[in-house]
């Protein structure tokens, strides 16, 4: 079980994952929560920007691009 948990930026494009934990604090954590990234939320990695970063994710029906710095602070489980 534990092995399946990785950070969101490690999820390959086209795969879906379930949010397990947010490791960010303060304002960044607020922002991530405001996007609807609470525990249990299902996120799909859609595509990478031409230069590899940021990555677009589908979060609760909206397409949101996150830089790898932010995505690396969201722990998810591949599904």
């Amino acid at each position, binding site marked *: 079980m534990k092995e399946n948990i990785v950070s969101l930026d490690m999820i390959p494009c086209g795969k879906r994952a379930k949010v397990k934990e947010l490791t960010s604090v303060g304002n960044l954590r607020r922002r991530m929560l405001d996007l609807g990234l609470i525990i249990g939320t299902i996120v799909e990695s859609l595509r990478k920007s031409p230069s590899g970063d940021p990555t677009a994710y589908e979060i609760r029906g909206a397409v949101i691009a996150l830089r790898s710095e*932010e995505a690396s602070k969201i722990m998810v489980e591949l599904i």
Partner: protein
Amino acid sequence: MGLTAQSTGIGALKEMLDIKMNPVDDIVVALAGNPNTGKSTVFNSLTGLNQHTGNWTGKTVTTAQGNYRFKDKNFILVDLPGTYSLLSNSVEEEIARDFICFGNPGATVVVTDATCLERNLNLVLQILEITDKVVVCVNLMDEARRKKIQIDLNKLSELLGVPVVGTNARSGDGLEELMDAVYKVSANEISTEPVIIQYNSHTEEILQDIERKIKRYADDRINSRWVSLKLIDGEKTILNSINKYLGLDLAVQLNEEFENLRDQIVSSIVKLAESISSQVVYTQNQKHNELDRRIDDILTSKIFGIPAMIALLGVIFWITIEGANIPSDAIANVLFGIEDKLTKLFTIYNLPKWLHGVLVLGMYRTLAWVVSVMLPPMAIFFPLFTFLEDLGYLPRVAFNLDNFFKKACAHGKQALTMCMGFGCNAAGVIGCRIIDSPRERLIAVITNFFVPCNGRFPTLIAISTIFIAGTSSGKIQSVIAALTITIVIVLGVLMTLLASKILSKTVLKGIPSSFALELPPYRKPQIGRIIVRSIFDRTIFVLGRAVMVAAPAGLFIWIMANMNIKGISLLDHSAGFLEPFANLLGMDGYILMAFILGLPANEIVMPIIIMSYMAAGSMLELDNLEALRNLLISHGWTWLTAVNVMLFCLMHFPCATTLLTIRKETKSWKWTLVSFLVPTAAGITATFVVTQIVRLLGLV
């Protein structure tokens, strides 16, 4: 609630937002909603006031107001900044929150996107915690239908406990019902019972404890449950706002630390939104976003993303240049025909020669040049640009370019404010408010001028068409011109990145802050609306401004050209003074003077150059672009001059409007000066280096 304007602090807010109203009869309606839900379209459709709207996040950075009449009442609609939430502590969110909470609006309309309801419900639920006078407007119902998404509006209304109206603001569907619902809610004809968000027992316990204490001090002047929630959410700014608008210092009275239960609070809201959404939204086609995905596969792809972006830009310029040639000549013919008639009129009535000089040769001719050179390219370019804006392409540009901005230690949203700069740099500077971090906002402000605005495009288009491309023949002429401008734009973007990088490594040190960029669904642009809007909002506005500045400038130039000191005109004196320096930069004194005189508005740089040449030279008849080219050549222009003028046009001191806006936004003369110096230094360096290298190599 029977409170006076004084006691609710609405005076202060009204001052802040400058609302003009009759306090007895008028009803203030707040318009809230997520960015990109068509909120501004709802606003425009209701008020008829043409506030500019675009398909990108955070367009409304200041509050716009308009009014409409419904039945016997006058409603004042205040368009609040678009926000996803009221919890994140950004400036816009604070404005929206404070207005809904303390502005005491008769009703708050929350505009939501039917294609993405769940995400929008987050804000709806947060607003329902503040006030019960809410009408939910589910907009973009046609988009939803197209994507085969159905929404049970009655059920939604039942679950939320407030009226829900489905609309298509672009076609006007449902707006009558919306106004009716707002009327009834504000007149208390409908009593609303907003859903109450239940938190877990631990949170509720703490919440009720604080709520009791707040009630003791604030009575019913504020929603005490909501304020308590904010406090245990770790939100300190709410205490300042309460102090500011209600004159009540709760911080002193409560004097305690609150347990931060934010995760719990947000989770409850998000889960409730999810639950409501699942009960009212029916998606027939699970792959309703397939088309968007496929378009994105190309426009943001690893291989084609950036080339597609540059190609798109090139095509737009090509269409503009190719299309503008014919009307430019036609307009010039008509306008200069009128000049001849005016001259005859002056001769018939035997009016003094100097009057003819001042009014016809000075003012009228400059105006005629501004109109015939600028109007056609603008009338073609702006609708095309607005089309991309409406389509939702600009956030994709930001997505493609973000990594470069990150490497320049700048904020990802700077790509968006840069795009706004293409319209108007002053607007771009105001747009920088969407960037929260003060350091990154300053970088975005200072470097905004590196992308050419409306006022500078005509100069670039004119020079590349008549000069650079003029040396080649036939069809490829416009292709070369378009290519030249595209290169200039790419250079502008590179300079933006370079300057941002240098700034963040020197005076504005720091690391890039976090950001999340929404890529909204593509929307089918409405061609008719685009044309009307881009012609009226942009073309007429820019042309009007140019004409206002060009007329006195033409007059001034004519006087300078005709006032002599020791047999040499003032114009030649000034140009002669600037000549040595201008020569180092590969230009001449007249050109440099035109840039300096163009400080009020960059639109008039090219007309001033033409006017000075015509006043100083032998050539007085100038009725087509070919003649214009000959005029420039007769004044010693080479391709190097043209390149330098374009470089300097791209990089020099911002126009007066932009500078004043920067002063207002940064509240600092120091940063205004920096914003003046950075592009100027870049322009001087670039033209100097290019000129010296070309001359050294003997290329001209």
